[in-house]
């Protein structure tokens, strides 16, 4: 494999393509100020088993009310890293971690943090739309019912609010009592987003949210993300580099469980510092 210098002077192999950099949405300035950091991952090691380390020495900062994309080839650990942020990995027996993840200054792995309480504030949207086999309304109301005692009227308002936030209200307002599974794939995924938003999380984790969707539905989710980041910090795992370019403000590239490079999306795509990043975003492996 030929190596190129880290600059983006077009010295790429024939046939290698970068995502069109014109599509890069973000105008994020390069240096990240300490007060902008919402999530600070510090020297994180993660093990699925005694001898199966999945993440090595991860140091990463995610800015508040911005979208951070985690990219990398399959099995690079990007989904594992995402699930460290709401401690979903702990549901698997035998997992272990070292290091720290600070969310707004609180160490998520501190002894006083309860993972169940944490997940109320760090919402998650999964790869495959996974609505509960209940009505549209009940899907959105479920999280609210878990955490708050609301009157029927308050609940109705919050459900509508969340569905509007997820750009789904107009499509489902006449069939709130219909089965959620009767919606299209894209609608189901927006319902899952509404369900997560209803409890007003600080962070929204999205694990390849569009991988099961068609381009039109994908477009809708991406538009939605750009609007949602006004209120929540978003971390998205995506296997689509063009999606990372379109939506994210900062991009982190992982490879074989290590963080190779992280920075403003424009810099990662136009002027990566690392050869590996350059090779990955030009599609020479992955």
């Amino acid at each position: 494999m030929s190596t190129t210098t880290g600059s983006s002077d077009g010295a790429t192999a024939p046939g290698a393509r970068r995502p069109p950099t014109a599509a890069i949405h973000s105008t994020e300035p390069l240096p990240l100020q300490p007060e902008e950091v919402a999530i600070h991952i510090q020297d994180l090691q993660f093990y699925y088993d005694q001898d199966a380390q999945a993440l090595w020495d991860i140091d990463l900062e995610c800015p508040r009310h911005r979208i951070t994309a985690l990219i990398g080839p399959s099995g690079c650990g990007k989904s594992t890293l995402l699930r460290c942020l709401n401690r979903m990995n702990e549901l698997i027996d035998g997992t272990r971690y070292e290091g720290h993840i600070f969310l707004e200054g609180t160490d998520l792995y501190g002894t006083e943090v309860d993972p169940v309480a944490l997940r109320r504030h760090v919402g998650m949207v999964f790869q495959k739309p996974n609505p509960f086999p209940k009505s549209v309304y009940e899907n959105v109301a479920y999280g609210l019912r878990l955490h708050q005692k609301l009157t029927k009227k308050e609940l109705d308002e919050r459900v509508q609010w969340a569905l509007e936030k997820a750009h789904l209200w107009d499509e489902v307002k006449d069939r709130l009592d219909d089965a959620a599974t009767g919606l299209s794939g894209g609608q189901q995924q927006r319902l899952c987003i509404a369900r997560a938003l209803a409890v007003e999380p600080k962070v929204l984790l999205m694990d390849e949210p569009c991988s099961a969707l068609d381009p039109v539905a994908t477009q809708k989710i991406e538009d939605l993300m750009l609007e949602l980041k006004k209120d929540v910090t978003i971390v998205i795992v995506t296997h689509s580099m063009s999606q990372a370019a379109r939506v994210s403000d900062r991009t982190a590239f992982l490879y074989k469980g290590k963080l190779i490079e992280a920075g403003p999306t424009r810099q990662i795509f136009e002027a990566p510092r690392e050869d590996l990043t350059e090779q990955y975003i030009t599609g020479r492996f992955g």
Partner: protein
Amino acid sequence: MSGDGALLFTADADLHRRRRTERRWKAVLLVGASFSIVGLAVLIVRMLADGVPHMNLDFWSESYSPSGIRGRTAGIFDALVSSILVLGMTMVIAVPVGTAAGIYLYEYAHKSRLTDWIRATVSNLAGVPSVVYGLLGLAIFVRLFADTFGMPRQGTYLAAALTLAVLILPILIVATEEALKTVPATVRHASLGLGATKWQTIRHHVLPYALPGILTGQILALSRAAGETAPLLIIGLPTYQVFQTYGPLATGTPLQVRAYYLASDARQEAIDLAAGAIVVLLLATLALNLLAIFLRDRLQNRIRW
């Protein structure tokens, strides 16, 4: 073969040979299927023909007695009540324990060599001959309980129910685990990801989804218990009681045990009564299985998957 390039879709010698092979195997399979279906049909028709003519009013309302057999007025009333009593107690004991064990093993127990071993053992226990459970029941629920708790030193309804409960526990545990396995991980993740506890996730999402499967397992376990005779013979349920009383520590003869005793009686009157009792057992089992299917379909439609 056509020379002008037109396609001729006709069978050649090779295809004829393949067709003959197919016909031969189809015949072999048909014979196998016929044997089981015809055999079963003959059995059922014979049973109905032998049993149904004797199922008159006395059959349902009278109990067993030697004089009743002689006068053709003996019935299955006491045996039916005994069966319902034993099965009711069995389910009350076994269902909560078995379901709880299945849920714990599948949802909460950490994966370790110990739990793997327990799981394998539970599956194996489901295949242990029922006579073995009879010996266990005799040793523990009759003798040990008599020695330690001062219970009657004989095969009581309670001892019978406990023995049958232990016998169907593995079936209940395995059925519960299998039902839980069908719940997609994505539903659990969705719930946990919203900040639900594990129990809330089980209670709100997993159990409603798995309920049809769990219920089906319970009903099938019930019908298994309804037909088990050997363990009840071993713990020593009596052939008949002169003065029949009902209660956990009383004793009596459930239907399947009664049918067994009557069938080994040489008198035609007894054999006829046995035939009637067997028809009742058969219909009860059939009804339970139909109920299982009905409940499963009903509940599955309620889940909007």
